[in-house]
Every structure is written in C-alpha cells, then in structure tokens.
C-alpha cells in the first residue's frame, strides 16, 4: 500500500504504509511535523480553552444537573424537553432568533453596501466622514444599552418626545410585543459603519479596468453592478453571510443590555441564547438543560454554515482558483 502525501515543500511523495499502528502514527508525525508544529498553538488552545469546556458541557447535557448537586441520569429528557413540555418557549426562542436573523442579515448587508457605495466617492473630507459614520460602533456596549434605554423610554424618552412633537401617537418601542423587534432591528442600523468598512474595502479592490472595459462595451449601471461588482465582492458577501449567521443566531449581549435583562414584553425578544442564559443562571439553575439547549443551537448553526459552505459555488475567488 502506498500512501501519497505532500511534503513541506509541496512535492508529492509516496511512501509504503506500515502495518504497525504505532509506527504509522510515528510516521504521520515524521511526515507532518512542521505543519503540526506551526498549528500546535491553536490546537492546544482549542483543546484547553474550548474543547474541554465543550466536552464538559456535552457531558452535563445528558443529565439533570443544577451545577450544585450531583448529576442525575434522566434518559435524554434534556433533548426531548424542547419538543414536549418546553415546546412553547423553545419554539418562541427559535422563531424570535430566526425572524431577527432573516431580517437583520440581509438588511445590514444591503444597507452597508449602499452606504459603502455612497462613501466610496473621492471627495474632500471623506475620511473624516467615514470615521464619523463608524463612531457608533466603538461606543461601549454597556453605555450603548443605557443610551438607548434612555432614548426609548415610553413616557419620558427623547424618542417619543420627537414623535409626539410631530403630532403622531407615542411609539411603544420595547414595551409592546408588536414593536420590540422592529425597534431592535432599527437600532442595529447605527452599527452599519462596521459593515460599511468591509464593503468599501471590497469595492476598492475591484480592478478599475473591468469597469472601463464594460463602459466601452456600453454596459449600464445595472449590468456593471450585477456582472462586475457583485461577483467581484462575492467573497465578502460569503464572509458576511457566515459571520452573520454565527453572530445573529447567538445574539445576546446587546439585547440583554438594551432591555435591561428582560426577554421583552410577552417574550417578544426571547433570543435563543437568552433562553439558555435564563435556564442556566436563574434562581433555580438548570445547567444540564441549558447545555443541551446550547448543543442544539450548535448543531443548528453548524447545519446552516455547512449549507452555505456547500452551496458556495457562486463565490468568485479570482482567476487562479
């Protein structure tokens, strides 16, 4: 049996495979030690600081466990419970999280793109303007939460002062289940600056010759956008999509701060991770169930990411790829 491998210098080599497993493992390390050595920090780091906690939480997820007394085997009840007696809250959390993701990911992507297109002009002072647009991104989360809680206060907030002075009825913001989500998504728009930077970067990297060539052939704005800009930016779209999925499905901190630690009226802002948090750290903690919920989310995110990776043929990685 011949095993082929690529050596340190990228040459393909063949080697007879040994039958002794110890020798085979030894051989593996002999062949690959340089690469393994280089990535060893991340492997060790992940082992210590991620995988050990992950395995520990996986273990907890199979038991009735409160974090204090011993683990009690409960026949996979933590994994059936979301679909039986906790069905209502579980699916509420799933639907809140998905609704948010489905609106938020495309919205920030499209608006971030539009903003980048607009700010990619060569004008005087454009750098300062970009910085100012970026400013809300660097406001510390805690302060950000306080600020918007202050602003959206139903009766005394500035938001409703402005709205009522225009002769409109006061807007309930975070105090009604119908408007809480819309308010959250709207307030997210202040963070578009971060997205914008990534887009400007992508736009700048498209070779000017492509547009010139297209113009000579009489291509209009639409053709240029859909035939050049978007395909050339596809790696960025891809990156944004992956990060968006991972980030949106794990939404927690910013909402937690803005709602003052509550899941919103009638659970209208009960994000999945928030449910995990309440399950794990309430007055009667259920670490086992919280761990199971996290692993369910882990699988959901994994599936979506995998789907996106598998269907990523549309991503254009340059000519040589």
């Amino acid at each position, binding site marked *: 049996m011949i095993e082929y*491998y690529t050596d*340190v210098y990228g040459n393909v080599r063949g080697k007879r495979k040994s039958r002794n497993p110890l020798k085979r493992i030894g051989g*593996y390390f002999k062949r*690959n030690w*340089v*690469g*393994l050595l*280089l*990535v060893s*920090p*991340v492997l*060790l780091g*992940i082992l*210590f*600081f*991620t995988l050990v*906690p*992950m395995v520990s*939480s996986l273990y907890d997820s199979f038991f009735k466990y409160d974090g204090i007394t011993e683990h009690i085997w409960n026949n996979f009840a933590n994994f059936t419970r979301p679909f039986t007696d906790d069905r209502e809250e579980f699916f509420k959390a799933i639907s809140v999280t998905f609704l948010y993701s489905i609106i938020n990911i495309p919205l920030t992507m499209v608006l971030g793109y539009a903003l980048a297109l*607009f*700010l990619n002009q060569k*004008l005087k002072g454009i*750098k300062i303007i970009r910085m100012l*647009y*970026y*400013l809300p991104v*660097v*406001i*510390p*989360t*805690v*302060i*950000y939460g*306080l*600020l918007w809680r202050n602003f959206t206060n139903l009766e*005394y907030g*500035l938001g409703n*002062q402005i709205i009522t002075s225009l002769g409109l009825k006061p807007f309930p913001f975070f105090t009604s289940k119908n408007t809480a989500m819309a308010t959250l998504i709207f307030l997210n728009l*202040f963070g578009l*600056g971060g997205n914008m*930077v990534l887009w400007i*970067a*992508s736009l700048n*990297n498209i070779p000017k010759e492509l547009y010139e060539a297209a113009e000579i052939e009489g291509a209009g704005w639409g053709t240029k956008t859909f035939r050049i800009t978007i395909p050339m930016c596809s*790696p960025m779209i*891809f*990156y944004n999509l992956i990060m968006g999925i991972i980030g949106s499905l794990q939404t*927690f*901190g910013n909402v937690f701060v803005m709602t003052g630690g509550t899941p919103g009226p009638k659970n209208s802002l009960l994000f999945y*991770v928030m449910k*995990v948090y309440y399950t*794990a750290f309430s007055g009667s903690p259920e670490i086992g169930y919280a761990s199971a919920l*996290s692993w369910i*989310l*882990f699988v959901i*995110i*994994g599936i979506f*990411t995998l789907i996106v990776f598998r269907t990523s043929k549309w991503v254009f*990685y*340059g000519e040589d790829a």
Partner: protein
Amino acid sequence: MIQAKRMISRSKLAKRGIKISVSYLVMAVLLLFFLFPFFFMFFKSLMSDAESYSLPIRFIPSKFTVTAYKTVLDASLLRYLGNTLLVVGFNVIAVPLSASLCAYGFARVKFEGSNKVFGIVLATMMLPSVVVQIPLYVIFNMLGWIGTLWPVTIPNIFGGGAVNIFLIMQFMRGIPKEIENSAKIDGANVMGIYFRIIMPLCMPIVLFIMVNTFLGVWNDFMGPLIYLQGNPDWYTLAIGVYYKFMGGLSQRNYPNQQMAVGVLMVIPPSILFLIFQNQLIEGVTMGSIKG
C-alpha cells in the same frame, strides 16, 4: 467650436458640482443619523448631576458643565487605563502573531488532514459562549488565574481566535507560490520564509487584525467581568467603569458620569480608526477577494 467645447465642459462641471453638493447634503443628513447616539452621549455628559436624570429627558443641556468629567477622572480610572493598555498591548502583538503562524501552517505548509483540523477550529466558533463559561472558570481557577490578567491574555497566545486564522488564511492564499519557491531555492527554511517573506506580505491583514483586536479588547466586558472578579487592582476600563458608575447597588448612578466615561472611551478607538483607515480598508480586501 472652442466656445461650444467650453460650454460643454462648463455644463459638465456644473453637473458635477450639483452631484457633489447633493452628495454632501445626503452625507450630512446621514451624518446626523449616525452621530445621534454620540451627541446624545456627549450632551448628556455635559449636564449637571441633577439635570442628567431629570424627566422628561433632555437632549441639549440647559447649562454646559464639565462636573461629570471632573468626577470621573480620578486615580482609579488611570489605574484601569493602565491595566487596559497592558492587556491591549499584549493582545495586539500576540493575536496576529499567533494567528498568522497557525494560518501559515494551515494554508501554506499544510499537513495530512489539515483541512479537517481547520474545520474543527472553525466549528468552535459556533458554540454559544454562555455555556462554556463555567467550565472555563473552573479551568482558570485550577490554574490560579482568577483575579489576574492571565485569563484575558494568555489564551490569545494559542491561535488568537478562529476568525483571525480564517482571515489570514484567505489572505495567504492570494500570495503567489513562486515567491516562496524562489526562497526555498535560496535555502531558506520554513521559519525563515515565514518571517522574511510571508509575514511582511501579510502586513495589511495583520494591521486589520491588530486594530480589530484593539477594539475588541478595549470594549470587552464579559471576560473581565467573570475572570477579574473581586480584584479591582486588575480591573480593565470597561469593567472598572461599570462597577464605579453603573453597577452600584447603594449609591446613585448619574447618567452624566456614565456618558462622560462613554465619551472618554470612544476617543482612543476613533483616533485609531482615523489613522489606520487606509490600511484597514486595504487589509480586508485582499484577504477575501483573492481566496
């Protein structure tokens, strides 16, 4: 003829002028939108204690005062700043260095099964952090790290985060193999190639990661909250400020002081962004375009 040409260019100029002024106008309107939270914060920080929590909430102070800044700026704040700079300084070096080394291993040197191992590395980003916090606390406690700066620094030596490795890998793929090969012919070893060729070429993305690390560490709240607990000597700004001006149970928290802290904390990252804007914008690009 010449007259006509001039006319055209003039009308073209005028058209361009209109376009520019419209652009500026739209920018100004959008600027109002984006700067709103900042101004809200800024004006609130200039209110007196009593006015800052008066109802209905005011936007512009009736009288500008800097009392909030005077209260906020004290010795302990400087101490927190010092700690934060320590953590930031460490991470800004450690994260890109470690991440680029690992990325080099995954993307260029490669080993059997490197893609699969990288898949595992990426997958670790997907588990919500809430649930690993307690086991992590236990590990750090076993190491005797609780209440010290180690938990917010040392783990970053180990790879510097999957996202950063991913970004650098994408970038490295765009570096032509020939450069590396010619160095090999000259007899350079792996580390030599990394430090002399790969690293300098990766500077744009490394700079991007440095700035991002700075922002992340500067505002990190959850990490210090859990791991530095009970040891104010090592509090970073985000957490120190939180306890001082927001978390108090018994004393009153004044919005003007809270916002003054916010304004002060926004300054360094904004300056950084302004200075490194060009590099930031170039950095991300190449990484993802040339896959």
